[in-house]
């Protein structure tokens, strides 16, 4: 039915007592997500949301008591890298970091460490994942998607909602929607998620929503042309964005590609992907 999360996913929320964390924990519970624990150092032993979620001082204690296997992170940027390390050390196999504005050097260390541990990270600076009708981990509004067979993967937040909403208006359902986050360095890339969709028997088509910057879309195009059998439809945001005022040469030397939307569209089309001119056009293209 899905990738990454389903109705059996046992979710631990870090930063459960904060403003954002509490609000979205309530939303996740209302959607039916199996939120089993919250963590907030110094508040262990308390309960939040009318006794629905127990709070622990550490991830380790929470995992021992509840068997949580997936962590979601709402703590502020300064504390977020530590929260991710703690979840990885605590034995969680999937970590979804919603937090934005984490310094990129912190994230490179985090990714290096998680790769060695074999722990999967989604984000940071992402809306999380949603398997309609089963579970949502993160902040994607649950009511804008129907269950179905379309996999959605995106670097954006609200633009993803826009696409989910358009699919729902047309009566089309989604297997899982994954927001991988818009930061320069993120845990899971397009290719990582496309691999999962390709292997998932309940996903038969994929929507990819990219944006300008980096070369992740180009890598996705390579993967699609060489490894994917399922049809992919894409939209790339930022086709009209002006090129940034660049300085220094290292970025251009390293990435080779321009990061421009036109180049990404070209790479995807060459891989047989149909690229929509505007987000709502995805709905028409996904069926053909």
């Amino acid at each position, binding site marked *: 039915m899905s990738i990454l999360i389903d109705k059996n996913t046992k979710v631990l929320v870090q930063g459960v007592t904060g403003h954002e964390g509490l609000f979205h924990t309530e939303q996740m519970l209302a959607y039916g997500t199996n939120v089993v624990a919250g963590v907030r150092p110094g508040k262990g032993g308390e309960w939040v949301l009318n006794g629905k979620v127990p709070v622990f001082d550490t991830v380790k204690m929470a995992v021992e008591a509840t068997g949580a296997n997936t962590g979601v992170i709402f703590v502020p940027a300064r504390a977020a890298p530590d929260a991710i390390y703690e979840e990885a050390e605590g034995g969680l196999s999937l970590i979804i970091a919603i937090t934005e504005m984490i310094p990129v050097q912190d994230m490179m260390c985090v990714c290096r460490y998680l790769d060695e541990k074999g722990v999967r990270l989604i984000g940071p600076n992402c809306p999380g994942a949603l398997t309609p009708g089963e579970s949502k981990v993160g902040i994607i509004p649950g009511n804008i998607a129907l269950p179905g067979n379309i996999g959605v993967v995106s670097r954006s937040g609200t633009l993803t909602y826009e696409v989910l909403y358009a699919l729902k208006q047309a009566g089309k359902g989604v297997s899982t929607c994954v927001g991988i986050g818009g930061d320069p360095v993120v845990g899971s890339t397009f290719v990582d998620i496309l691999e999962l969709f390709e292997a998932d028997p309940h996903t038969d088509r994929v929507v990819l929503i990219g944006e300008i910057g980096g070369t992740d879309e180009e890598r996705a195009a390579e993967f699609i042309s060489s490894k994917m059998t399922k049809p992919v439809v894409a939209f790339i945001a930022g086709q009209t964005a002006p090129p940034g005022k*660049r300085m220094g040469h290292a970025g251009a030397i390293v990435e080779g590609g321009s990061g421009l939307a036109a180049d990404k569209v070209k790479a995807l089309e060459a891989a047989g992907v149909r690229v929509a001119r505007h987000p709502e056009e995805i709905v028409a293209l996904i069926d053909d």
Partner: protein
Amino acid sequence: MKLHEYQSKQIFAKYGIPIPKGRVAATADEAKQIAEELGGRTVIKAQVLVGGRGKAGGIRLAKNPKEAEDLATQILAMEIKGLPVRKVLVDEAANISKEIYLGITNDRAYKRPVMIASAAGGVDIEEVARTSPEMIARIYIDPLLGLRDFQARDIAASIDLPHEYWRTFAEIARGLWQTFVETDATLAEINPLVITNDNRLLALDGKMTLDDNALYRHPDLADMRDIDIEAPAEVEARKYGLSYISLEGEIGCMVNGAGLAMATMDVIKLNGGEPANFLDIGGGAGAEKVAAALRIILSDPKVKAVLFNIFGGITRCDEVARGILAALADVKPKIPMVVRLVGTNAEEGMRLLSDAHMITAQTLLDAAEKAVKAARGVYA
């Protein structure tokens, strides 16, 4: 955040990287004085945050202090790619026998910092990378280990650096790595790193870009920000935590989320219009922030229509509507406005706006079409 050459080189020097003697000057008089102190020939270099300074005539060689003064007068009166030159760096001139490139940046795909070097340093390094990629050496640095000495030697060997320079080169490479890590840079670049006629290595020019998200750890570096490169409206926007970039078109946009903001601009263009700005109010924006955003959009005289595209998730559409109403009461604009609210509390938001004489839209395509028509006076 970008740093000027003189700022970058001051930081390099702190980490043991040799730089030419010199100082920054804001007037021709100061430039002359510095040239007198240095003695001999000097280089007068415009301090602006764009590339191509040399080709624009912003870097000149002065034979004596009088010439330094004259050249500084000229350069300080220049604009380079639209940026005014406020300061010049006066450096002692070096006798160059060879130019090397040495830089560190992040490789997003590998998720690691990468050190790049080339024996063909200088202004055409990107051309070299395109046409002769074998001339570029790269070493990926494990962020948990840092740059190791053997890696610095690997780099020296792969650019055919003569053995007598290896020790100094390794110190410079280590210094650059330390600079990169300890300032949370996303770019630290020495171009060129020169070998002088008297066999010294010298960082003749330097560029750095710092990670804005890490500036909280570096208040001293944050103070170095040059707001000249930003339009006043962009500076104002940052105060409110808004992400705003001024553009050339006639349709002002207010959107939540960067991806959706870019997509909204794309759809405006698809309908034959031009966006006047990129504006992302971020997640969970309250009424006050929305009001500030609208005032900033309306301060642009080019704007002939405004398009609001809000997809409520964390952001509540009724909060956005309240912000719009507050700003309208304050600014009283005479231009048409198109609004599309979807998601969390959208009905309540639309109800609040029902008396505000705004054009409403259901889909993004519909909203963009209406905004383009509105900017052309169709609804006037």
